[in-house]
């Protein structure tokens, strides 16, 4: 979709209905989630998702910086999504660009919708997401990593936030686009789900879709989120198993 004026368009869907990496339309890329990947952060997680590598860390509740953002009745939730200079094919200049600032904003708003911020007035909960290697879907990978990192930090939340992008390639709705699919596809629709309520706290879309395609995309995305949800819970169980002394009482 960012490729007006580019020349070669790859075949995104085989006659058998398989995608360039052999996946079915409703199939996720492989995901590996490691809770507690860092030592300094209050909570952290590392996510490998297809060819994405994303690290998230959470600090807080802690003193608000800068001070004038402090709120008397709740914690402020701040998020910085950042891409490493070497995470993409063309080197990205270090520093926050407009895309990163927008993604940081919608991710912060997604977490504000589920964190019990009023339990920590006058504090800040700071979420840092670093994309180390990017291959489409980094904001969803970042959300998943950050959500596990928040849980790892013991921040009380309504629920974890699984996230995934649905897209349209060669006229078909497809789950979890990889880079070539995102570049040459017709639409991209990232979302984040609160599994408990079935509601979406992040939703963006760019491309071309009919209302029916959009409805089908939402349904496919929700199913994808529920699949990811299980992997997130498993990663946290593994983390707790590693930290609680075996055979001891809680």
């Amino acid at each position, binding site marked *: *979709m960012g*490729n*007006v*004026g*580019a*020349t070669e368009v790859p075949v995104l869907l085989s006659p058998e209905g398989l995608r360039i990496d052999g996946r079915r339309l409703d199939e996720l890329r492989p995901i590996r989630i490691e809770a507690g990947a860092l030592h300094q952060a209050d909570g952290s997680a590392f996510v490998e998702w297809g060819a994405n590598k994303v690290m998230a860390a959470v600090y807080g509740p802690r003193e608000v910086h800068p001070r004038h953002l402090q709120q*008397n*009745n709740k914690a402020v939730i701040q998020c910085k999504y950042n891409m490493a200079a070497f995470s993409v094919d*063309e080197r990205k200049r270090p520093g926050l660009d*407009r*895309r990163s*600032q*927008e993604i*940081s*904003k*919608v991710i912060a*708003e997604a977490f*504000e*919708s589920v964190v019990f911020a009023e339990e920590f007035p006058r504090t800040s909960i700071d979420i840092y997401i670093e994309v180390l290697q990017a291959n489409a879907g980094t904001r969803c990978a970042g959300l998943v990593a950050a959500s596990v990192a928040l849980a790892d930090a013991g921040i009380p939340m309504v629920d974890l936030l699984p996230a995934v992008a649905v897209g349209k390639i060669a006229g078909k709705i497809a789950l979890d686009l990889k880079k070539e699919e995102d570049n040459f596809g017709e*639409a991209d*629709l990232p979302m984040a789900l*609160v599994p408990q*309520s*079935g*509601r*979406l*706290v*992040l*939703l*963006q*879309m*760019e*491309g*071309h*879709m*009919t*209302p029916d395609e*959009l*409805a089908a995309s*939402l*349904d496919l995305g*929700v199913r994808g989120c529920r699949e990811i949800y299980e992997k997130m819970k498993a990663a946290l169980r593994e983390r707790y198993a590693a930290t609680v002394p075996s055979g001891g009482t809680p």
Partner: protein
Amino acid sequence: MSEEVTAEILMTHILDLAAEGKRMDGRGPDEYRAVSVEPGFVATADGSALARVGNTTVLAGIKLEPGKPFPDTPNAGVLTTNAELIPLSSPTFEPGPPQPGAIEVSRVVDRAIRAADTLDLTRLVVTPGEKTWVCYVDMHVLDHAGNLIDAASLAALTALSHATVPAKRFEVGDADYPLEVQHYPVECTFVRLGDTIVVDPTFEEEQAAQGRLTVATDENGRIVAMQKGLVGAFSPDDVKEVVRRALVHGDRLRAIAKGGPR
């Protein structure tokens, strides 16, 4: 009474009204405020429009200049969209570098213009890989009474569809000619107030909102962009309902954007 308490009471009042399907300014949940556009407001711009949605006012100005295509897209012109939430327009805006809110407005408007192929960017190229028109869309918020995205989108679309390519001034051609617009995407924004989803929120309704959802549609009934914003959530069914309503409002807004005198 502290500012916080006043704000709290106002928000509760808005939510109570919404529960009965009412709004502070007397509108129904699916009623848009009065909308008008004034193309050609700024003579120094290559295209411009002042859009009003209720008391919200946004001025968009287009400037076209020769420049270089990006290395990876030698056959495409360059489109740059920028929104300025200047402190003149609201007591809540501060001077300084663009705030996340301004960046969101410009990116959401930009996304719809781009995804809808509003301009045929290949036609902006003068010499592939060498020289192209760079099209700047600058949106200046003058009065912020809620729903900036829709007002900015209307101003930008109207300005683009009344713009001229200054070929003669830059000695790229013999005469200036109209910038061609292929599609007409418009944004339509809703907020959730309890169980009620209202269209075209005022500033106060945005403060009280439990989620904002914007849907951009084109003249073929396609969805070209969406953006959920603010704290809050929408069910998939909410989204489907919002899309239906956005298509209806979109047609009316598009007619207003197109209707201005050329």
